[in-house]
């Protein structure tokens, strides 16, 4: 059952979106999520959809991966669409059949909200498909740097995030191993009543915790030995570099917001 979980959805590539600086991509996605809420009529939603399609085309992502990313939310999108179609009662009736009445406003709102959803999910999917988790972490660290003045331990948080990311696959393997070992002894975590599951989880947790504490000790010693002394004056293995294309992304965003403000009602 662990094979089903994909850790991180990053797919390496060489498109312009792949090569962009994680900082500009992150900034763009955060701002875009806010800007989506500006749209409120047909033209503005069409612009959002067109822009998202453009981003996907630039990233040269195979549709298969996008659809995979949409899978968990497609149900939610359809659900909101139907909810709006059947329960928003405003405007003239456009369709009537026995007890089903569809109002114009309901259809309009349903489609708009579904597009909003679709656009948000697609843009964040493009980000996670084209940026590896480790460079997202690097990008976040530099973006959050100004908050150091407010005593926010930015470096420590980023360090913890990278260690966490590094250990997730290892721990997955380990969990899988322990689960199989337990399975061989006849205990199964994924089936059974709630009580059985609760009891099955103890023999899984004990070895996980013991090894976590041991690993932490080993890693701490290894880092000490190599002279780790916090974020001050540390040089980096992965350097971030800001190019013209990153500035272009931000300019595009400003233009997009300008157009949205202009066409919205």
């Amino acid at each position, binding site marked *: 059952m662990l094979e089903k979980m994909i850790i*991180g959805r990053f797919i390496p590539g060489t498109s312009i979106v792949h090569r962009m600086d994680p900082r500009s991509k992150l900034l763009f996605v955060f701002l875009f999520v806010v800007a989506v809420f500006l749209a409120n009529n047909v033209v503005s939603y069409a612009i959002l959809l067109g822009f998202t399609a453009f981003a996907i085309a630039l990233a040269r992502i195979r549709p298969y991966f996008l659809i995979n990313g949409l899978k968990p939310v497609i149900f939610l999108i359809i659900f*909101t669409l139907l909810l709006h179609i059947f329960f928003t009662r405003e405007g003239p009736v456009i369709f009537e059949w026995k007890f089903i009445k569809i109002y114009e406003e309901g259809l309009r709102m349903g489609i708009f909200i579904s597009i909003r959803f679709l656009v948000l999910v697609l843009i964040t999917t493009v980000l996670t498909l084209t940026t590896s988790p480790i460079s997202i972490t690097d990008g976040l660290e530099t973006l959050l740097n100004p908050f150091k003045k407010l005593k926010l331990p930015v470096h420590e948080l980023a*360090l913890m995030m990278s260690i966490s990311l590094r250990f997730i696959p290892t*721990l997955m393997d380990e969990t899988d191993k322990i689960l199989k070992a337990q399975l061989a002894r006849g205990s199964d*975590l994924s089936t059974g009543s709630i009580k059985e599951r609760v009891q099955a989880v103890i023999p899984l947790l004990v070895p996980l915790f013991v090894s*976590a504490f041991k690993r932490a000790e080993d890693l701490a010693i290894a880092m000490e030995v190599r002279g780790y002394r916090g974020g001050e004056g540390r040089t980096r293995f992965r350097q971030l570099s800001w190019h013209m294309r990153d500035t272009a992304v931000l300019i595009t965003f400003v233009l997009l917001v300008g157009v949205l403000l202009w066409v919205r009602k």
Partner: protein
Amino acid sequence: MNNKKLRKLILVAILGSISTVLMQFNFPIPAMPGFLKIDFSEIPAVMAIMTMGPVAGIGVEILKNVMHWFLSGSPTGVPVGEVANFVTGVLFIMPIYWIFTKYRSAKGLASGLIAGTVAMAIGMSVLNYLVFLPMYTYFLGMPAVTGDSLYQMIILGILPFNLIKGVMLLAITLMLYRSMEKWILQQQKKLSF
């Protein structure tokens, strides 16, 4: 940098990834709305509280939710669910810390867990009423649930769900503590200044 501080930092990170892994094994409770899912990801945070104190516990909660957001994305783009999960976790672990530091025993832990369950159930009911459910419906663009139906949803959904979750976590943590008491004490001594 102090060796113990670094070790704690790393430990919080690794416990955070255990939490993230455990979060994947979530399952809904029969006869409850689908977005209410039970998982065991609070347990590493309780472990962090018992061995390293409150900041570590909160750190595990933050990491778990950030990782979860990174790795599986959020349907609304805005991580409402992750924020809700973080608040739930903090509400659950803080009472454990307050009681467990005073009474370091199975009994102290049990009363801490009960207090945590109550705090989580009541706190989340109030917060869902005031913040999270309205936020959800706003981002989904649904007609807002208000008045009686919201009240009912909380009394019949959120409150019993959090109580069930709390009782399950209580049972697991107590069993875990019983089998690892000495080891936990030993680690706690090793990590304290």
